[in-house]
């Protein structure tokens, strides 16, 4: 039963240490098979009739993959076809040691009930534990352990079989030596490829096979294209001595031959090292952590401004790439040259499955094809598939298996198809995948934590709650909003003061910490709003029903109640869990109408007027303190109710009531932030908005100066004030443009844990402290804040992770990441729908303003569509016009016309769908007319449709 494990370990100081560890062998580890009658297991995982139809194994069988099979063929194992697999502990441990992401995936597979995967703890089983023999390497020992365990299984199943089911165990290995030895000991053993190819029902699995080593030799010529990567030990030594630098590779979006490596060094803030050319990139892929060696100074180059895409048919590996790279060799001024280096080794690959499309090989019979990822920073990948013809025009996912040094492209394998390119659902899927937005349906485990319907408020729920159902509470939201997370009320007290309440959906009542629902929500972090689609953070039952503060139903809420005087000064603040019954769910417009309608004097309207009055004062106060009112154009699509295609596009309108709601939300957030920070100085979850560094404002200052307007950026207040006064006669849109520019200068606001940071200031809101409390249905941060506040007022109990500042901080990182990604996804979604919109519109002619001036282009904003686009002045097919760029202005002189920021121009807008993966909006100049540059005004034909758009 007891065995001690002894091994020798080297200490840090160089001494040799003998470490003795206990290793218990057990006789109560069961085989996990349904067919087994010997083992006294409580629950079985492996099925009795474990049938995968296969030519090789016509009998029911269990699969035992070895470590390398798991590491390389995880995609296969993930397939639902593959069931009844025995993962040995030896394998699990080795995988854990070798690759964290695959380990994670393996664990997911194990947890999947339908897969029937059983983990057999062979290392602690009395009969399958083996000791390493003298002269045996660790790997050999593990291989032997796997064989011994497989052998045990086959004998065990044979012995326990009363009825002749003929259950067998099949060992999968790719190692020739291992296979041979297994055969010698009488095991059923196949190579993974052999086995998969033998599967009758599922030929498509073959495509997912990762290319293994011996196959690679077939496709690639023996010619070595890339220098060898250095071993990790030498890289580490090099980094230590300073000859190599470590950093994350960021491939250039525009030029596949160029990348930068951001190196974090102790002595400075970090530098960027330029990597140019395939040889120097040396098989590094975007996001990989690499080791870089600097080139001698005379080989330094400047980043090229050329746009280069790896296009065309697959290049033969033998062909020299010099032609491609010659393009780069433009002599640059000495001053423009940058630190240049080459990649000598990869410290950590950061490969994920990539979305993209297949370029079918010109040879019809070929099974090897190139795959072009949607993300331009990722190189093209060579995959092998027999279903190329059916994959053409589809968005597919591909994983990289490796990049041998004699191959021009990385090798990968097909994972799955997402659907036809250009289709809305497919594109949405791509968008979500590329932005890492978790969007699968909620799992059964998650849904099991939902309250049972029909749900009602129980007396236990009332114990710590105030009954505020009698108050005249109402909610004001955008039209069509189903996840109402805030409601308001205002009433006059007997002492003449006003009582204002903000009632927020009590989501934390339904989502209890630590359960699957909570974990899922924490992972999702935020609800993602795409055009016409919402990716919920919490299941719909909560988001649109139980938590949503709909009118005329009792709902649980978390209330923040102030007593204010008529000057909007807060006299008293109070937080409480409550039950409310909203009297009305209004849209902004409806609320505005009620306020404006002087004849209407019902409770709701009076309450709204009171709120509106206070909000105006609050806003004034806030602006006086230096809060910024910034501007960005947001657009709304009018969707066709059947096809869900955008039929109209309009910029969002802001009403007084918008700002009324916003004002109280801000106030609630600030009050809550103070409260939780007082209570939990170490672990309050807050939100900060750092002041931007002065250099960020350069562009704004220059732009304003061109119109003789002075902008002060010393403080938020100075900026706000100077923005307020910035006006140019006859150019009403100037102020908005200026604000749009100012917005671009800002930093990103982030969540953080108060124990980990000292700077709490929120620059944009000019508040010393801030958090998010008011939207728990769609933001996870708010749920945490709710929990903190609940503990602070004694309405709920605390739990371990809530007060652990490191866990809190890790959570913040995830929330910030999800938040950023959701914004990108949102933008991408808008862009996609804009494209769809213009696709149906044909070519349009619109008025716009120059927002930025670039070296070879101007960026134009079309206020009508909130659309931004680039007008290039040099294109491939045309001779470049005379362009002169002045950085001071900044201005761009094209032929005889000089473009300034804020210039009014007219452009045509059309959809460029020449590249189906990267459709884009193309703009061309129509006014001012510059010979050879501007285009003619398009036919009036689309104008015919226009009246419908004008509103």
């Amino acid at each position, binding site marked *: *039963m*007891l065995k*001690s494990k002894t091994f020798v*370990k080297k*200490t840090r100081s160089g*001494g040799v*240490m*003998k*470490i*003795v*560890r*206990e*290793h*218990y*062998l*057990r006789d109560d580890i069961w085989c996990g098979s349904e067919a087994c009658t010997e083992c006294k297991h409580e629950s079985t995982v492996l099925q009795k009739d474990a049938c995968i139809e296969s030519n090789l194994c016509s009998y029911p069988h269990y699969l035992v993959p070895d470590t390398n099979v798991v590491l390389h063929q995880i995609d296969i194992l993930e397939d639902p076809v593959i069931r009844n697999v025995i993962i040995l*502990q030896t394998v*699990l441990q080795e995988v*854990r*040691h070798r690759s*964290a992401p695959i380990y994670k995936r393996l*664990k997911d597979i*194990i*947890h999947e009930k339908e897969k029937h995967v059983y*983990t057999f*703890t062979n*290392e*602690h089983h009395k009969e399958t534990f083996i000791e390493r023999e003298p002269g045996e390497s660790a790997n050999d020992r593990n291989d032997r352990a796997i064989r011994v365990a497989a052998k045990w299984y086959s004998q065990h199943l044979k012995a326990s079989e009363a009825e002749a089911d003929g259950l067998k165990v099949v060992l999968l290995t790719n190692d020739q030596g291992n296979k041979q030895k297994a055969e010698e000991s009488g095991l059923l053993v196949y190579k993974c490829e052999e086995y998969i190819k033998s599967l009758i029902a599922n030929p498509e699995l073959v495509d997912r096979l990762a290319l293994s080593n011996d196959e690679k030799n077939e496709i690639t010529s023996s010619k070595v294209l890339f220098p060898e990567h250095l071993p990790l030990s030498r890289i580490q030594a090099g980094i230590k001595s300073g000859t190599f630098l470590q950093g994350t590779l960021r491939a250039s979006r525009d030029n596949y031959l160029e990348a930068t490596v951001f190196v974090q060094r102790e002595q400075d803030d970090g530098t960027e090292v330029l990597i140019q050319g395939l040889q120097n990139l040396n098989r590094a892929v975007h996001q990989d952590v690499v080791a870089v060696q600097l080139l001698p100074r005379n080989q330094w180059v400047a980043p090229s401004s050329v746009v280069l895409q790896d296009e065309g048919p697959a290049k033969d590996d033998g062909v020299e790439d010099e032609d491609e790279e010659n393009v780069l060799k433009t002599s640059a001024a000495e001053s423009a040259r940058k630190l240049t280096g080459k990649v000598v080794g990869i410290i950590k690959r950061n490969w994920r499955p990539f979305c993209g499309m297949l370029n079918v090989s010109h040879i019809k019979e070929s099974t090897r094809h190139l795959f072009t990822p949607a993300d331009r920073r990722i190189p093209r990948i060579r995959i092998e598939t027999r279903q190329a013809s059916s994959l053409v025009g589809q968005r597919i996912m591909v994983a990289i298996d490796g990049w041998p040094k004699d191959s021009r492209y990385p090798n990968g394998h097909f994972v799955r198809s997402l659907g036809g390119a250009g289709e809305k659902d497919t594109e949405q899927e791509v968008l979500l995948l590329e932005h890492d937005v978790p969007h699968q349906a909620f799992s059964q485990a998650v849904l099991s934590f939902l309250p049972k319907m029909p749900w009602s408020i129980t007396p236990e729920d009332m114990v710590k709650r105030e009954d505020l159902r009698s108050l005249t509470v109402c909610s004001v939201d955008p039209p069509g909003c189903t996840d109402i997370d805030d409601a308001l009320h205002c009433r006059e007290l007997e002492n003449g003061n006003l009582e204002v309440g903000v009632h927020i959906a009590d989501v934390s009542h339904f989502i209890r910490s*630590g359960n699957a629902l909570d974990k899922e929500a924490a992972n999702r972090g935020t609800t993602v709003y795409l055009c016409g689609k919402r990716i919920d953070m919490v299941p719909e039952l909560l988001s649109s029903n139980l938590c949503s503060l709909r009118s005329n139903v009792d709902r649980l809420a978390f209330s923040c109640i102030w007593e204010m005087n008529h000057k909007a000064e807060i006299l008293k603040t109070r937080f409480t869990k409550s039950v409310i019954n909203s009297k009305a769910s209004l849209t902004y417009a409806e609320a505005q109408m009620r306020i404006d309608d002087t004849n209407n004097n019902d409770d709701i309207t009076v309450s709204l007027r009171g709120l509106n009055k206070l909000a105006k004062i609050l806003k004034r106060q806030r602006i006086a303190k230096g809060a910024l009112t910034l501007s960005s154009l947001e657009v709304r699509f009018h969707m066709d109710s059947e096809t869900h295609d955008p039929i109209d596009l309009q910029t969002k309108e802001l009403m007084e009531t918008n700002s009324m709601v916003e004002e109280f939300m801000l106030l609630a957030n600030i009050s809550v932030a103070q409260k939780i920070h007082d209570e939990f100085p170490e672990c309050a979850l807050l939100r900060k908005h750092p002041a931007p560094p002065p250099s960020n404002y350069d562009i704004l200052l220059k732009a304003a100066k061109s119109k003789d307007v002075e902008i002060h950026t010393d403080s938020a207040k100075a900026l706000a004030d100077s923005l307020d006064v910035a006006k140019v006669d006859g150019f009403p849109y100037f102020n908005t443009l200026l604000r749009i520019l100012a917005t671009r200068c800002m930093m990103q606001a982030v969540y953080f844990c108060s124990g980990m940071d000292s700077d709490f200031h929120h620059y944009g809101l000019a508040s010393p402290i801030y958090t998010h409390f008011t939207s728990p249905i769609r933001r996870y941060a708010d749920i945490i804040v709710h929990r903190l506040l609940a503990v602070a007022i004694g309405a709920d*109990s*605390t*739990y*371990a*992770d809530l*007060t*652990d500042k490191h866990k809190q901080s890790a959570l913040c990182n995830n929330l910030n990441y999800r938040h950023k990604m959701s914004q990108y996804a949102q933008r991408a979604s808008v862009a996609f729908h804009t494209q769809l919109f213009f696709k149906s519109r044909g070519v349009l002619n619109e008025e716009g303003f120059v927002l930025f001036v670039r070296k070879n282009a101007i960026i134009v904003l079309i206020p009508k569509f909130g659309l931004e686009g680039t007008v290039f002045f040099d294109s491939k097919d045309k001779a470049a016009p005379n362009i002169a760029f002045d950085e001071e202005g900044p201005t761009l002189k094209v032929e005889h016309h000089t473009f300034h920021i804020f210039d009014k121009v007219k452009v045509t807008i059309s959809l460029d769908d020449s590249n189906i993966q990267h459709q884009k909006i193309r703009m061309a100049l129509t006014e001012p007319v510059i010979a050879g540059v501007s285009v003619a005004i398009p036919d009036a034909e689309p104008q015919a449709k226009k009246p419908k758009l004008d509103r």
Partner: protein
Amino acid sequence: MAGLELLSDQGYRLDGRKATELRKVQARMGVFAQADGSAYLEQGNTKALAVVYGPHEMRGSRSRTLHDRAVINCQYSMATFSTAERKRRPHGDRKSTEMSLHLKQTFEAAVMTQLYPRSQIDIYVKILQSDGGNYSVCVNAATLAVIDAGIPMRDYVCACTVGFVDETPLADLCFAEESGGVSSLALALLPRGGQIALLQMDARLHQDHLETLIEAAMTACKGVSKVLDEVVRQHLQERSVLSGE
């Protein structure tokens, strides 16, 4: 790379035990003729030797004498060869002083010191090999030694360390687990009455988990007490058979 996986999904720990399982405990009483009581105890790879002298007249400074009960004097030490790295361990370093103090507190709670006014009971414990849970092993060894010395106690004192991993309490941590960043708790229990003689924890743990952890520690201590009980009864039987009629 993440550290060691202390508890696998299948519920096995690094050394193959389940979460609630103790290590193998082996013990022998009366290993020295010279001392009044002595015992040797192995708990997995942690091995300790405990020796008890007394009760006897106060030695050293007489000022420490208590007029209503006996003074318990504990000394904890570790052998130079007890850890993987050989290390000279001078007497009275901070760690062993603290440990001595803990032992003293533990045994003051269990030994009926009021029966021996003005006297002194010496308990010396030495760790011969250390593999986690030093405190508990010392307590368990010392309990046997005290019983061997025929000194009256209310009950056995059994100690056990428990750690908290993945929301699961692990009983009787080994060194690898202790150093794996687990918040661990040591508990000495008088198992019959369920009184806690000493509870020590210097890691951070959320209040919600404390109860489950203590619960687990108590169960583990009761497990230890069963083993000790067996050892004592065995010893008793042997001796009474030896002494014949």
